[in-house]
């Protein structure tokens, strides 16, 4: 359904955002946040999607989806155990429940880091979902993405609200080449817990930027796991606001990239605004074939955020000479009673370990796969649900076995 209608609340919000847009630093090569990144996202608009582009896009974790986003069309499953609506419907609705939420986080996240593309998204959404979770569920909510050749260069906008004490898991799968810029605003009430697995983008050859902004209330939990399998040029920006005591969050990412000159660009900013909050960031990249992985992870600790526990680890495995790893693990700390640490290493496969495995008769490629699997296991350990973790591990194992060409 094409929407020409927008509500008055959206209109006035839109005007306000337009006005303040001028002060947001545009994407440019000299910017702290875009140096060395792939800037195709700004220039390469998709002209056409061919059949060959659609090959190899089916993605991981094939389970019954609650929602399928096909290009710019939303397909809700008939068995609606969740309250999901189309964001475009909500924007047109004067009494929408999203009224007090839409755009607030995007605006807030412009304070420390300029996010011009997120602003573009707020002003021009085309497709997306609004989801309010008021009941816990063990069964993951699967959102599957498909590509519709007729839709191109869409802005996807999502909104997720998790109510007090509710626990849920969302798994996003598939590939939507029609969308090149997505923003998801997430609000977690007190004691809410959201596990989010972003398994999209496998083999995606078009540039894409994906933003997630999350506001967290006291004692809430947000665990995000991202998987980048051979994305050509995908950029992720995640910003969290920890606004109450006792919050726990984990942001983990595994990037396995081995097609010539492909890119993985992860950017995370966690704002500790209250005391006794705990955050973890775990990034693992495995690169071959002249690929590049960029990780910009930052922890910001406000003066009130005493007893913060912030951990960050970004490690990369470079399997061929011209692969590159660029990392900026940042700390901006204004409280003294904190434990913050970050570690970053870059290396190639450990020769001693490799030799040991070979000396026991393990075939060379298999030995390398075993070491890669061991390498990324720390990030996979961030996934709480054992069955999901094991299913993903197996899928990734199959993936890594194709890594080395004989």
């Amino acid at each position, binding site marked *: 359904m094409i929407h020409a209608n927008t509500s008055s609340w959206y209109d006035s919000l839109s005007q306000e955002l337009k006005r303040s847009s001028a002060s947001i630093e545009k994407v440019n090569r000299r910017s702290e946040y875009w140096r060395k990144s792939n800037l195709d996202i700004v220039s390469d608009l998709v002209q056409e999607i061919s059949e060959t582009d659609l090959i190899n896009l089916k993605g991981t974790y094939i389970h019954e989806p609650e929602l399928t986003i096909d290009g710019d069309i939303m397909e809700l499953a008939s068995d609606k155990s969740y309250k999901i609506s189309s964001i475009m419907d909500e924007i047109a609705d004067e009494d929408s429940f999203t009224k007090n939420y839409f755009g607030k986080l995007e605006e807030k996240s412009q304070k420390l880091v300029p996010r011009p593309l997120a602003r573009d998204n707020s002003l021009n959404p085309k497709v997306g979902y609004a989801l309010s979770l008021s009941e816990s569920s063990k069964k993951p909510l699967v959102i599957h993405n498909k590509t519709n050749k007729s839709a191109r260069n869409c802005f996807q906008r999502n909104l997720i609200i998790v109510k007090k004490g509710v626990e849920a898991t969302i798994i996003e799968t598939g590939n939507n080449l029609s969308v090149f810029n997505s923003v998801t605003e997430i609000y977690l009430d007190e004691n809410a817990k959201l596990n989010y697995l972003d398994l999209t983008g496998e083999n995606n050859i078009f540039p894409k930027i994906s933003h997630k902004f999350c506001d967290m209330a006291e004692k809430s939990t947000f665990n995000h796991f991202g998987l980048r399998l051979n994305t050509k040029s995908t950029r992720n920006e995640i910003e969290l606001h920890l606004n109450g005591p006792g919050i726990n969050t984990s942001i983990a990412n595994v990037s396995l990239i081995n097609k010539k000159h492909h890119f993985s660009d992860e950017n995370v900013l966690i704002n500790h605004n209250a005391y006794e909050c705990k955050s973890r960031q775990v990034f693992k990249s495995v690169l071959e074939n002249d690929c590049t992985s960029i990780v910009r992870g930052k922890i910001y600790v406000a003066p009130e955020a005493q007893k913060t526990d912030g951990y960050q680890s970004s490690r990369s495995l470079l399997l061929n000479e*011209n692969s590159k790893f660029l990392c900026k693990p940042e700390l901006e700390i204004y409280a*003294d009673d904190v434990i913050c640490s970050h570690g970053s290493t*870059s290396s190639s496969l450990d020769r001693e370990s490799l030799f040991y495995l070979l000396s026991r008769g393990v075939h060379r490629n298999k030995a390398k796969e075993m070491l890669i699997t061991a390498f990324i296991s720390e990030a996979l350990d961030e996934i709480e649900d054992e069955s999901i973790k094991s299913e993903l591990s197996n899928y990734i194992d199959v993936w890594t076995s194709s890594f080395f060409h004989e």
Partner: protein
Amino acid sequence: MTDNYEVRDVIDKETLSTVKSVGDTYKYGFSTDIETEYAPLGLNEDIVKLISKKNNEPKWMLDWRLKAFNRWKKLKQPDWALLKIPEIDFQDQYYYARPANMKEKPKSLDEVDPKLLETYSKLGIPLTEQKKLAGVIEENPEDKSENRKVAVDAVFDSVSVGTTFKEELKSAGVIFCSISEAIKEYPDLVKKYLGSVVPISDNFFACLNAAVFSDGSFVYIPKGVRCPMELSTYFRINAENTGQFERTLIIADDNSYVSYLEGCTAPQRDESQLHAAVVELVILDEAEIKYSTVQNWFPGDENGVGGIYNFVTKRADCRGRNSKVMWTQVETGSAITWKYPSCVLKGDNSSGEFYSIAITNNMQQADTGTKMIHLGKNTNSRIVSKGISAGKAQNTYRGLVQIGGRSQNSRNFTQCDSLLIGNKCGAHTVPYIEVNNSSARAEHEATTSKVDEDQLFYCMQRGIGEEDAVALIVNGFCKEVLQALPMEFAMEAQKLVAISLEGSVG
């Protein structure tokens, strides 16, 4: 005037109120009352020419300065997100000040104004040569105590006052003199290397320095020579409202070694003063330079009034195979510090090490760190940075480790730790790691912590006063860096650490 710092339960208010402000304890805050000659206020081509003339420089030197000046006019002062630098009016400064009775360079220390010598004596810097007291004291070269000889070049307001041990160094072939002298006596050496490590175009302050530098130290160690003693330059800013621009150039030829110490202080004043220095190190095959700095410029009073703005560009070019450089610094002074001693590791197997303690208290701001650029094969770098932040200070470590595409088998290890005292200060880490070669191994670790309450309690329970306990613990935190300093500097550094933290507790 103490602000409303959050007072922890363990500390009683009496302790707080008896703590002196940093302003009072900066014991180098005295100024020397001597007649000083100033150039006219402001900076323009005439001033540049004046500086060159006053130093009797040859034309090629003046041309070099003018080139830099013309370039500088087109540049803009850099803007760093985490430093709040007030607008510096470059025209409202003197760019040249010299003790009046130094129109003619003194030929020996006997000719130097005794008031100047007294200044250095007050600072504890020995300028008179320590001659062997024949027959009384047996000089023991192994003895690492006060009998150790250190050659000193004293620079008072950008003018080299004198250099000790010149003859002895000369017989070893070592050249250690002021750069103004070197320009005249050893022009070939200077021409060859000046600006080759930090070119005029490098950055705003380096460019300014190239135009208006007045003096600094020049060192040349010939092939195969291990410099027989440590060399040291002691910078003292005295004149009011004058910018200080020293230029230091050290060249270690093949197979040579030198250990160089740099110390700095300045009197307490209400206006801020600009210090923009450039240090260039050139290290050839198998050579090694060890460069240590204990910087204790006036940091401003507890309200941030006055204090030195310290913007320094220091770079070591490890050109030769197996060349080595070690930067060790203890930064406790200056209102604003902006410095990144760097190493360019060009030669295969070259190695660069960086050890730093940066302490900020009250309203100080420091944005310091290092850049290690790996270009050659099998190059190695090691960074250990300890930042301590107290009061309302902001302390940032900014580092870059860049491993080039052809830099095979290179290794980097970085450890940057921050210690926060009190909840009104900030400690930040902004490291950039760029690995462009798969055979390289880069490891980076950073931690942030506070002075451990249990440790503090333990010390106090054993009768150590709280401030002393904090100093003790902080010294422990900095141990690895302190151990890298030459012995006398290490002791001075430890004392400085304690002094710099006064008033920080609570």
